[in-house]
């Protein structure tokens, strides 16, 4: 089964390629890239005219929650993968904070097996850093890594005890494992529900201060330096946190950072009249901070942009703001959020794509995320300027708690391929 896609704008962030041409796919892998070629590839049995659309590697998302196992009413691996491929996400990492927690080899294998049986996208399990995410006992990092866990994290609540964190990182380093940690000093932030500041004060809501993130980041970055552990700071929300990362990197530490796509799009004022769909952790910050993050993304200081997909059913969101759950569905809107920065904020298209393709692929050591002969044919065809109205009724996720609901967006995926097979095709409704 071979396929040629021609008349496409080939975009490969890994090499900086942005040229018209054709691509040849065989047995699930990219076999050839014919730059400048307008017709189908000579060896292909089937061909597809891209009609001038952008052809890029599928998105790789390092932070997705589903409810499987334990909370399937929120989302399953299958429903999340449907939303993912509609948003152009062809590979994603699921977080370990399910019920039960992914802190055991058998559960890591369960995720891999269930994903293979039910999901349209490639799904990679992460492993819990501590047993039951209790922050006290180190989980079986080595055995889970051998079973396929691609990174280890304590989820939304970082390990509170620095000594335990240090040992876990030292141990992870010796097994070559990547540790992902939310930079957050809970003593400062645990009671907060939105960004700390004048807006929260006027709304009468308790705040999560930026210092909580800086202090948490400084601790984990220093531990990464002393243990030699590869560290990924999860969902950084201020540019100053990235300065902490850059300083450590300059000293040779293996420290990286992600930012959630919605953090680049919204600011604290979008919380407006207590909109619980805008209740996320880390919270939307003030506009100056948001602009600072966009500048950092332009400078290449952000290794990966994640969806932070966290589906919550209505019973978790139809509550007073303070009582509602944190989290936003994001798999279907990540690309559009980035395209809004391309279209409105001067972010180069290839830089936007790098943060969701080659950037995360490099962090995990995956072969996909690039247009390269031999790489898996996980591809998207998209129109970066196509306008659309985000209506949560049309989102494919089982829970549709999207802060983008009702927003006019630009940039739409028209077709998604995983392993050379079309798993999503846009149909105008």
């Amino acid at each position, binding site marked *: 089964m071979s396929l040629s896609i021609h008349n496409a704008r080939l975009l490969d962030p890994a090499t900086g390629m942005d040229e018209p041409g054709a691509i040849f796919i065989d047995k699930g892998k990219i076999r050839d890239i014919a730059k400048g070629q307008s017709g189908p590839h000579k060896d292909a049995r089937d061909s597809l005219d891209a009609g001038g659309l952008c052809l890029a590697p599928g998105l790789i998302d390092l932070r997705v929650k589903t409810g499987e196992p334990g909370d399937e009413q929120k989302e399953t691996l299958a429903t999340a993968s449907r939303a993912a491929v509609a948003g152009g996400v062809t590979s994603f990492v699921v977080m370990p904070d399910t019920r039960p927690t992914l802190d055991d080899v058998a559960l890591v294998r369960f995720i891999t097996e269930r994903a293979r049986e039910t999901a349209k996208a490639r799904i990679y399990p992460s492993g819990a850093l*501590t*047993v039951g995410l209790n922050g*006290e*006992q*180190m*989980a*079986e*990092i*080595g*055995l889970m890594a051998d079973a396929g866990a691609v990174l280890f994290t304590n989820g939304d609540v970082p390990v509170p005890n620095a000594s*335990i964190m240090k*040992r876990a990182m*030292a*141990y992870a*380093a*010796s*097994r070559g494992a990547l540790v992902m940690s939310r930079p957050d000093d809970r003593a400062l932030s645990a009671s907060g529900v939105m960004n700390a500041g004048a807006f929260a004060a006027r709304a009468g809501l308790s705040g999560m201060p930026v210092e909580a993130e800086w202090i948490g980041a400084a601790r984990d970055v220093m531990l990464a330096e002393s*243990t030699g552990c590869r560290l990924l700071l999860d969902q950084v929300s201020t540019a100053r946190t990235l300065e902490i990362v850059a300083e450590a990197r300059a000293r040779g530490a293996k420290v990286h950072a992600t930012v959630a796509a919605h953090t680049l799009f919204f600011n604290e004022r979008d919380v407006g009249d207590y909109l619980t769909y805008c209740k996320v952790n880390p919270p939307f910050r003030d506009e100056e901070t948001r602009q600072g993050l966009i500048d950092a993304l332009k400078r290449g200081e952000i290794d990966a942009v994640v969806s932070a997909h966290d589906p919550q059913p209505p019973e978790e969101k139809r509550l007073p703001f303070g009582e509602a759950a944190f989290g936003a569905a994001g798999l279907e809107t990540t690309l559009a959020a980035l395209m809004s920065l391309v279209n409105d904020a001067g972010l180069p298209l290839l830089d936007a794509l790098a943060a969701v393709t080659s950037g995360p692929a490099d962090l995990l050591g995956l072969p996909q995320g690039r247009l390269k002969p031999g790489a898996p044919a996980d591809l998207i065809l998209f129109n970066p300027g196509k306008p659309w109205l985000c209506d949560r009724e049309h989102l494919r996720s089982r829970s549709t708690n999207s802060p983008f609901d009702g927003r006019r967006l630009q940039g739409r995926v028209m077709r998604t391929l995983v392993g050379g097979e079309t798993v999503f095709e846009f149909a105008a409704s």
Partner: protein
Amino acid sequence: MPKAGYTYSFDHAHLLGIEGLHPLDITHILDLADRYADATRAGQRADPVLTGRTVVNLFFENSTRTMSSFEIAAKRLGADVINMPVAHSSVKKGETLIDTAMTLNAMKPDVLVIRHSASGGAKLLSRKVDCAVINAGDGTHEHPTQGLLDTLTIRRTKGRIEGLKVVICGDIAHSRVARSTTMALHLLGAEVHLCGPRTLLPPGTDTWGAASATTDFDAALKGADIVMMLRLQLERMDGAFLPSRREYFRYFGLTADRLALALPDATVMHPGPMNRGIEIESAIADGPRSVITEQVEMGVAVREAVLDLLAGTRT
């Protein structure tokens, strides 16, 4: 032609650690211990060189094995032995240790054998008493008679120490055995490689004389003459320093497959007591390449030699 000769005398008042000993001191102790071991095996009674001497076993930490070993060694040489197992909970460290030492010193013993949970405990005691002090383990610092008995066991098994590749695997950070044994073997010319999970490998093991420290047990085992497994304390497992027992066994447990990476005639050692199925497979511990019971036997011989040198009537 007369041979150029030299006289040697063991001029240490105490045995507080391997650190501070000269390779000649170690060889001298081992030579004497060899004779005691041979005599015991031949069923001969040792010379009662400690007749009229009083040896006090002052154990602030429970250890039936080590205390019995010292007791038997001292009794074989004719000493009067008093065992003082001091319950750990009743001891309030520092001042109480000194108080105990002063009290005992007033009773004029000849040798104090001390085990204490604080590193430096034996040294502190030695400053306060007039008799010889033998360190039977101080915290995570040293356990010199263990280092000597390991060295003697290896020398008797392999016929030499120099040039041997020795791998010591386990909780290096909290092991006084690892420190004493590494130093003793290094002083006699062995190449000692330390191995364990990153959280239990302390920095600066090169200053002990270790040739390397690694988390890769399989790689360390290649070409090893001696594989020594250390006991993993239960409280170190189960999440504090390590994920779990089974993960520890997976990467650091000595199995038959793993032992095959070492030299075909590699010898297996363990200072005991063993956690079977955690750091060592039973079949290996009880197998033909294990010298674990010889270690216990050499323990008595080494302690006889040390007691003889420090308090014997012939010196």
